């Protein structure tokens, strides 16, 4: 294929718009990792539920899109807290981490993902649902056509990240969350309600995934099986950025998005979904803790 500059620009734009969504989901995964010490394999399904909730709120209940987004975030956040309380608490309390006992966490996560996916299947069926959001005509930038939803996605994503940043850095609860993420025992000794903070972290992460789902719904339609691919990309993003690092998750997401789009455009369109993993392996080979990650903790 011959090279032209506007196409390159378009590919980067595509990468950025999908990348911020990867970033938001990766942010949630990263938060959960730092708070609960687990890799949450059911996060893709949380994202899928978010998309369906957004669809229900916006199409069936007639809420305007931004309100639907907010409603989906809140309800999925609450759902996440329930899941964490009922299912994960038992496991995280008895160690978590990556001891042989902690292996259970991975399996529990996978099991939860199967459960959530099938509950969604029983509720909404297996077919994809269109998620129509009318935002006006597409923008023409030179040779590139950009639907408004892409721009909106990017803007909302940035707003969400800024809000999260402010919450973590400027509020007392945010401080407590950071303390719990850094060290649960010391946080507990400092008088922080650690179990509550863990719930907050999990709820926040789920709300972020719901936001990503609602954002991507209009672009890709909503389907029960949508979570898996997103999960893979978000994992890659979280690892590339460094687990537990929040700016890292965002940058990881953008990198994965751009990398896979450029790869599909200039190397081989067939292997689009492999590039994310390629980037993941590449980064891990050079920096085992990701680009912005803290040194991997070895539990002695």
């Amino acid at each position: 294929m011959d090279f032209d500059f506007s196409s390159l620009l378009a590919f980067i734009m595509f990468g950025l718009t999908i990348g911020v969504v990867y970033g938001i989901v990766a942010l949630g995964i990263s938060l959960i990792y730092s708070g609960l010490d687990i890799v949450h394999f059911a996060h893709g399904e949380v994202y899928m539920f978010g998309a369906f909730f957004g669809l229900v709120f916006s199409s069936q209940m007639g809420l305007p899109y931004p309100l639907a987004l907010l409603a989906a975030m809140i309800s999925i956040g609450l759902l996440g807290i329930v899941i964490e309380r009922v299912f994960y608490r038992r496991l995280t309390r008895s160690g978590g981490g990556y001891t042989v006992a902690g292996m259970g966490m991975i399996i529990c996560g996978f099991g939860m993902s199967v459960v959530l996916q099938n509950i969604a299947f029983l509720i909404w069926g297996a077919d994809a649902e269109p998620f129509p959001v009318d935002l006006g005509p597409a923008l023409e930038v030179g040779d590139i056509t950009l639907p408004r939803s892409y721009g909106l996605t990017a803007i909302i994503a940035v707003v969400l990240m800024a809000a999260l940043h402010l919450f973590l850095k400027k509020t007392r609860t945010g401080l407590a969350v950071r303390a719990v993420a850094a060290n649960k025992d010391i946080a507990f000794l400092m008088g922080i309600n650690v179990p509550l903070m863990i719930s907050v972290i999990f709820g926040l992460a789920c709300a972020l995934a719901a936001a990503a789902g609602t954002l991507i719904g209009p672009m890709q339609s909503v389907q029960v099986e949508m979570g898996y691919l997103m999960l893979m990309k978000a994992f890659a993003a979280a690892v590339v950025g460094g687990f537990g690092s929040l700016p890292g998750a965002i940058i990881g997401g953008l990198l994965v998005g751009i990398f896979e789009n450029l790869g599909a455009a200039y190397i081989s369109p067939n292997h689009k979904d492999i590039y994310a993993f390629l980037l993941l392996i590449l980064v891990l080979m050079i920096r085992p803790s990701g680009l912005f990650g803290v040194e991997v903790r070895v539990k002695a």
Partner: protein
Amino acid sequence: MKPHARRLIAGGIVAGVLGALASTALAADIRVGITMRMISENGQKYGQMVMDEIGMINEAGGINGNMIQATLLNDECKSDKGVANANKLIFQEKVHLLIGSTCSSVTLPIVDVTAKAEVPQIIPHSTNEKITKKGSAWVFRVPVSGRYYAGVNAKYVGENIGKRIAYICAADAASQNDCEAMQAQMNSQHGAEAVYVAQVQEKEVDFRTHMQKIKSAGVDGIMIAALAETMARALVQSYEAGIGEEVRRIGSSSASNSPVPAIAGDAAKGVFFAAAYAAADTRPIARLFNEMVRSRYGIHAPDHDFSQAYDLVRIVEIALNRASLSLEDGDLAADRTAIRDAIASVKGYRGLGSGEISFCADPTPQCRDGNRTAVLIAYSKGGEDYVTEVLARVTMPEDFGL
């Protein structure tokens, strides 16, 4: 305490033996095994329709007084599950006839299983042309083979649209076959090389990079070969990328499935594809069928996977009525052969399909791809209440594309 336990065990054994006897006593049923993809929403309805129609045959008195006992299993569109189901149905349930499967990649290995076990197999949906090329004497295909579709599509595209075609091919066996056959046909009929080919995953969600490249390459048409939902997404994103209406979108046969217009909405308008059944068919049988599917399964207009499942049950009914079956346990092999020969003797069946379906005894694709009439359909309106129109109806010669 202990004698009591022993008595319990003895009772259990007696009950088991009695149960086994009871099940052999019921052996005068015609046993039909079905393996289909039951996880997708429409897949579920196709399976349900096959079961419902068989139930109706039973209510109407069965086949020569014998009931049909149908077992439906889900293969999830996975070949290992499909093979396991086929083995279970054949060796444990000892079915007389196997119906399956939806996905070509599942039907392909099952063909080998039925050929070896010598069980007649009739295929509701798979279009991959390799299925009948395996030369099994036990396999019959109700849907139109992919090779015919490609011929019809390529002829129409080359004559009416142009020769610069880009291809987006999803990695499922039917779409892959449609895509490759189309490229081969465009080459042989019009000497046209593909402008752009992208192989995407079965459930790909992001086509924007491909669309941008197709846009800058400048094409006359885009062939999108994928399963319904994937295709719908690709259609929407092709418009989002700014590829105008003057570039025609060509669908693979799964474009006929209702999710395509429902999800793609306005982007489905103008998409055309070759299929086996047109809901716009004006014959009374088709009208009635449309009405029946609408009221029973809530589908606005049935796609050709519905019509094929329906035709399949009718063909099975005809064949079972013709075959002389003893239905004794010892005559299982003879009964299976009789059913095979009876299906092979079905000629000139005119049901919902756009043309006649005829089988013959030779284990060749010419004989076993019974349905050779493809109809070119275009969507003139998208959305839930979509409207289709028929562009052309073509019956292909038997050995086309071999």
